[in-house]
């Protein structure tokens, strides 16, 4: 498997070797999970209570590594500041980059965490940390935030996937590795290019009657098999069929063209605009976890030109989505997380680029469960290090879970083995929680 990231640095090659190690370990761990009932809360009653509250999470993932200096933590007039200026926001005293003028008007609905240090400059490992709250460990693979949310926040027997990932470009399908020991039922369903899930239209050559007959036969055979060999995998297989059938009935849910044209215009006539509008549609219709990815911020070359281009798209669509979710009453039940695998170096390289930098960068939160309208933590005058209230990926992961009402110190029962939901060596950032 070749790393698809742009820069092809030595760090990526290291990541691939580590990935292969992880993949092997994961296969072994998966075998254990699959031989037993699905992983579950040790205290199922608590899970049922949480599910009834219908909390949701929106993650906006800026792939490749957004520059904090061109976005949430500008340092104009310093040796690292770059050419862009800082602008005031709707929160007095909080300034962000001039590349985000519309987002600046939504700042009272957001909070910037400016002291993130994950001590990691590799794409794959940084992404893993920011999705799972864990440092990669060959002996265990942990589920993504989206899979945990799908498992713990979704309504039981919800026909909709609990974790939907809208990506630029093509592709699609299930990313089963996201769910790790939780099992494929909680894996992300990818909507490549914002298109509906693949193969959700009955082929013209198959009549409705033939399809019903075929499904009935499949159920009979499946039930017969399951009576003696029921496993997490067969259960997920059955559930996937049922879910697919429901998805086919509700396919319009994924059709963003059903949204008003005026809304599409407000979000912007580009893929990220359409994807943010689709995210709104999915959240409004009860999907638990929606991740929208925007590419590509891996700007080793001409960082400022590329951020100008990418953040131009981001600013319009993102700010519109925040405003819409608030206006539609979803802000009190939806946690927003804006992150990347890391930030970018304060130093500007000879190509006017910035390189990988996990040492002092920013994540943005919004919506339910967190204090809004400010900045938590700080970097020094030119952004080379965290000077106040440093946090890591594990603390952020705990905080996300606590913000949506989950007890992040809970454990999953995997084949009788308790596995902590979040890294037990750390806890939430209490000052951030509402």
């Amino acid at each position, binding site marked *: 498997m070749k790393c698809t990231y*742009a*820069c092809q640095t030595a760090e990526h090659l290291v990541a691939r070797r580590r990935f292969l190690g992880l993949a092997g370990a994961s296969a072994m761990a998966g075998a254990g999970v699959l031989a037993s009932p699905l992983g579950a809360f040790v205290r199922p009653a608590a899970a049922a209570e949480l599910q009834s509250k219908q909390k949701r999470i929106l993650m906006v993932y800026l792939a490749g590594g957004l520059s904090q200096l061109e976005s949430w933590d500008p340092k104009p007039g310093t040796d690292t500041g770059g*050419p862009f*200026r800082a602008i005031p926001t709707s929160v007095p005293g909080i300034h962000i980059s001039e590349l985000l003028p519309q987002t600046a008007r939504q700042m009272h609905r957001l909070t910037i965490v400016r002291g993130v240090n994950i001590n990691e400059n590799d794409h794959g490992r940084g992404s893993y940390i920011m999705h799972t709250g864990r440092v990669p460990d060959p002996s265990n693979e942990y589920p993504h935030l989206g899979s945990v949310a799908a498992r713990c926040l979704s309504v039981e027997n919800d026909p909709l996937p609990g974790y939907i990932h809208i990506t630029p470009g093509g592709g699609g399908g299930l990313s089963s590795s996201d769910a790790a020991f939780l099992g494929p039922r909680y894996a992300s369903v990818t909507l490549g290019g914002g298109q509906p899930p693949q193969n959700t239209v009955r082929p013209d050559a198959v009549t409705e009657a033939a399809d019903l007959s075929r499904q009935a036969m499949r159920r009979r055979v499946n039930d017969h098999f399951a009576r003696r060999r029921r496993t997490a995998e067969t259960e997920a297989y059955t559930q996937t069929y049922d879910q697919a059938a429901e998805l086919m009935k509700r396919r319009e849910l994924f059709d963003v063209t059903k949204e008003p044209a005026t809304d599409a215009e407000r979000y912007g006539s580009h893929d990220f605009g359409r994807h943010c509008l689709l995210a709104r549609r999915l959240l409004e219709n009860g999907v638990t976890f929606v991740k929208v990815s925007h*590419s*590509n911020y891996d700007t*080793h070359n001409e960082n400022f030109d590329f951020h100008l281009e990418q953040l131009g798209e981001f600013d319009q669509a993102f700010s519109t989505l925040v405003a819409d979710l608030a206006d539609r009453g979803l802000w009190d039940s939806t946690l927003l997380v804006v992150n990347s695998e890391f930030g970018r170096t304060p130093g*500007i390289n*000879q190509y006017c680029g910035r390189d990988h930098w996990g040492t002092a960068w920013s994540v943005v939160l919004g919506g339910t469960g967190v204090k809004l309208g400010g900045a938590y933590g700080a970097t020094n005058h030119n952004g080379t290090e965290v000077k106040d209230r440093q946090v890591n990926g594990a603390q952020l992961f705990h905080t996300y879970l606590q913000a949506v009402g989950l007890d992040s110190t809970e454990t999953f029962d995997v084949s009788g083995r308790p596995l902590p939901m979040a890294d037990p060596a750390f806890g939430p950032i209490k000052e951030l929680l509402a």
Partner: protein
Amino acid sequence: MSEPAATEAAAAPAVPPAPTEPAASVENTAPVENTAPAENTAAAEPAAPPPPPTADPAQTYIAADLVEGNSPLLSCKFDPSGRFVFAGAQDNSIRRWQLDGAKHTALTGAHDSWVRSLAFDATGELLISGGYDGRLVWWAATDEQPTPLRIVDRAHDGWIRAITTSPDGKTLATVGNDNLVKLWSTLDGRLLQVLAGHTGRVYTVAFHPSTGTLFSGDIKGFVKRWDLATAKETAQFDATPLWKYDGGQFVDFGGVRSLTVSGDGALVAAGGTTDASNPLGAVHKPIVIVFDANTGEKQQTHRAKEGFDGSIWGLRFHPAGFLLAASGGGGGGKLLFFHTAEPNEFFKFDLPALARDMDLHPNLLDVAVPMHDAHLRIARMAAKPA
């Protein structure tokens, strides 16, 4: 900003003096009076001066290495008399070096972003700077300590990418991220004309030396020709090999990074980058496309013989009949010398760091190149003195 660097010898010329050639055929430059140090001409009965050397690219060497502070440099310009060289910096200042004394002066306090482009008015006394703050600033270029004389804030919505003055020095053309070309009076800073039509950010601009037309190049690789009398677009030249939309990285990349018109007005050259296999990782090749200025027909596509990575950030037609290009990128910094008849360079000069811009001295021998390592280097196209 401090005064001249201690490492510069105040008594020694920054650039060894070079006899000059007529400069009439070089666009946007006034005739050169004299660049030789006064002490060399003060003798009672001067001997007959030696004949001026002609440019010889194959002999190019670094004649001066000017540095003050540690901010990378982005742009440069000789003043029309050839006494000074100016450089725009990433610390929002402009550096001025007096070539016959190595004296450095900082021009500060007017820009609050990087200074991307420099130009001179008709008198040669007023320097105009354009920055990523969207601001135009007029300076008394030759004052002991230049201060801003006029500031046009928000001259463009967003970055100013390039500025240049007309052959008579009375009109300033500016281009920027707002997709516009604007014309201004250099005398009073009045906006004269707005030329709309580009569909992407406009990176470069160049006047025709005689026909009252203007060329501008954008990110998408289009060069537009404008008739200034009617303010209408009269042609569009296709330089799209300089542009790429990378569907894997989801980015636009490239564009016309440099643009120049030959002294006789027959040719227009557009420089930039091509074959961008990894735009985010600086993997791309330098390229220059030469057009017939009247018909828009491609006359030549220049590429580097060795295929190194880079982009062409500065271009000038030299009256001696070659095209001079400054490249910066993954392959380092280079000066490339092309004949229009041949696709590859006939000579390449390696620079110590990446080039960001380039200007030709009125003596037609010295080439100033601002670099990322904070140095402004002056390469001389002549034999190095023994």
